[in-house]
């Protein structure tokens, strides 16, 4: 679970920041807490809208991508701080990253009140409709006499306090799961994708049957399309249609163009269908996407989800290995959203490729081999009289402190070059 921690203070030394840091380091088995700084956020001012500034956009991105937020507030004159209030104003003025977000409040203070009034005040602010955060009820963690609460290593001294803090965080982790389940959108809108291409966009060729096997010829005639030696002006260059075809058909990928009306209107015919990784036949060009996919509810649903995610910009690209890949071939279908110069969605570029030759070439060139570096290996029953080397699980658990990308070999190389 990923949480972000915000300390409501811009002071150089803040006990509330120390408290958050303590939570982040000591309870990392409960949640991964990333600390966010509010030092660079300007004072809220409607006449000088700073919503697009880096400091605020940074907070927005971090909060949106986190599962929940932990806020540690000091108490100034019976309320939370001006700086924290200002940050929340920015985060509820033009943008609303805290909307529906689970929030936990903690606080530390110099004297014995432990920021209790500030916490109540902050809770009130967070629950305002414009902010609309979902604050963990009860579970107040108030740390009074904070000057004496931490030792010289910034660790909480009192084990009772530590246990209570841990128990509140445990409850919050559960709370986050529940709230985020409630927030999870049931319908992504993918159902609205019309795979039968009954709509019409500016480029749709009307009056030609999409299902016709010679749709390309008919549509070309109707539109007086460029062909053969006719020139086409491209960004950036000038090619004849013949040159363009030669160029596209020599690509080491199978390319398919489906427009924003979900009509399949082009593929680079580099090989006969039986030789292609993803078979296409000339008569299919022009078909609505519904015609070129199996009539299987699960497949249709999945196609709609992918297209919708690309259309709405949720993802720039979706990549899927096909089932039945072997150790020597790894065929991947990639779907990438296409956009015009203004950023309007133009459809899907599907490119299909066997990436295994590339991987093997790279390994051969660099003298490396694939290393999975797992924590354990699942296999059919292993007999006990196996040599100890087979207990890869225990070896890698003890030693796998580094990810495979950590290359000690590189360090060795650099010291070798010093000797040169």
């Amino acid at each position: 679970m990923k949480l972000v921690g915000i300390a409501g203070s811009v002071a150089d030394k803040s006990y509330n920041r120390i408290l958050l840091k303590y939570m982040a380091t000591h309870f990392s088995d409960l949640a991964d807490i990333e600390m966010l700084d509010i030092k660079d956020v300007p004072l809220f001012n409607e006449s000088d809208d700073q919503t697009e500034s880096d400091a605020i956009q940074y907070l927005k991105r971090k909060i949106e991508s986190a599962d929940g937020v932990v806020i540690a507030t000091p108490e100034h004159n019976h309320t939370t701080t001006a700086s924290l209030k200002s940050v929340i104003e920015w985060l509820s003025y033009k943008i609303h990253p805290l909307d529906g977000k689970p929030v936990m409040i903690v606080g530390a203070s110099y004297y014995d009140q432990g920021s209790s009034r500030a916490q109540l005040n902050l809770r009130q602010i967070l629950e305002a409709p414009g902010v609309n955060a979902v604050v963990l009820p009860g579970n107040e963690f108030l740390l009074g006499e904070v000057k004496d609460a931490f030792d010289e290593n910034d660790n909480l001294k009192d084990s009772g306090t530590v246990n209570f803090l841990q128990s509140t965080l445990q409850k919050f982790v559960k709370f986050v799961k529940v709230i985020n389940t409630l927030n999870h959108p049931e319908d992504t809108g993918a159902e609205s994708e019309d795979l039968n291409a009954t709509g019409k966009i500016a480029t749709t060729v009307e009056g030609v049957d999409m299902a016709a096997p010679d749709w390309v010829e008919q549509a070309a005639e109707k539109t007086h399309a460029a062909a053969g030696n006719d020139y086409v002006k491209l960004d950036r260059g000038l090619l004849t249609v013949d040159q363009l075809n030669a160029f596209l058909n020599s690509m080491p990928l199978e390319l398919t163009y489906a427009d924003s009306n979900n009509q399949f209107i082009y593929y680079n015919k580099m090989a006969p269908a039986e030789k292609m990784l993803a078979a296409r036949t000339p008569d299919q060009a022009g078909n609505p996407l519904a015609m070129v996919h199996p009539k299987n509810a699960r497949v249709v649903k999945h196609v709609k989800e992918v297209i919708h995610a690309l259309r709405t910009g949720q993802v720039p690209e979706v990549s899927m290995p096909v089932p039945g890949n072997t150790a020597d071939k790894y065929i991947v279908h990639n779907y990438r959203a296409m956009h015009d110069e203004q950023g309007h969605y133009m459809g899907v570029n599907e490119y299909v490729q066997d990436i295994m030759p590339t991987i093997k070439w790279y390994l051969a060139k660099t003298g490396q081999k694939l290393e999975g570096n797992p924590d354990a290996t699942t296999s059919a029953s292993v007999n006990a009289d196996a040599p100890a080397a087979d207990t890869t699980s225990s070896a890698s658990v003890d030693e796998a402190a580094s990810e495979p990308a950590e290359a000690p070999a590189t360090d060795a190389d650099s010291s070798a070059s010093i000797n040169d």
Partner: protein
Amino acid sequence: MPVATQVVHLMGTVITLTITHRQPQPVLTEAVRRLKVYEHRFSANDETSELMAIAHQAGQRPVAVDPELFDLIRIGRDHSANTAEHLNIAIGPLVQTWRIGFNDARKPSDAEIQAALRLTDPAAITLDPRHLTVYLQRPGMTLDLGAIAKGYVADLLHDYFTTVGVTAGLINLGGNVVVFGPQRQHADQQWRIGIQDPGKPRGQNRLVIRVRDKSVVTSGIYERQLHAAGHTYHHVLDPVTGYPMPTEMASVTIISAQSITGELWTTRLFGQPVEAAMAQLRQTSGIDGIIITQTGQLYSTIL
């Protein structure tokens, strides 16, 4: 929080336990003690085990057993009743006839196989839940829980670890893997579990998956084989024919919450056509699967 690992050889395999706990050593010691108890309870290859005590009294009288053993036999029998599941815990006599995976493995004659098959009717297992007794109705019957025992034990260990406050851990019973809690050495807190490549020497993975709070169980025909008279026989026997199950699969891996679920599903899917097995995996919520065929093709519901 300290992390500790213990490797032991029990239940005919290599067992690795890794846990994160305030005081891991006493917890691991207790886990190993329990494993020894389970081994003595569930083993079909130990004449003195509780399971064999049932076989010794086959056709004579019911035997009172430990609640855990009763529970496992009940689960096994309930799933054995349906032949489509390919599971039969009464398959003991047939396994003992082939002995594939042991030094004295041999190809039995047809007559022997037919004789053994007659003693493998799961309906002839009588369970009395009130007195926790098990009765095998015919002399010569024996139970074999090999297809499900490791999963059951892994779940019991997982329960024990959670009860005593282990925050994260790995249980590897010779290829049956359960991982829970965060793997702190990886930034994403997920555990890396290698899936053995059936065509390669042991320890070489076909792929590595990332999971957390899951059991990963693999069943395959590559670990135990018998080569006799120019034929290769693997150890997954078809409870209907008495011969090794014809299959295009080399291994089936199931990712599930409970390890016993994984065991039941690998048994159920093995020997089915790949497409049919994949369809069932996709339609069943709460489980994912990876199938590697004998020609090296990979099918998966998670990639």
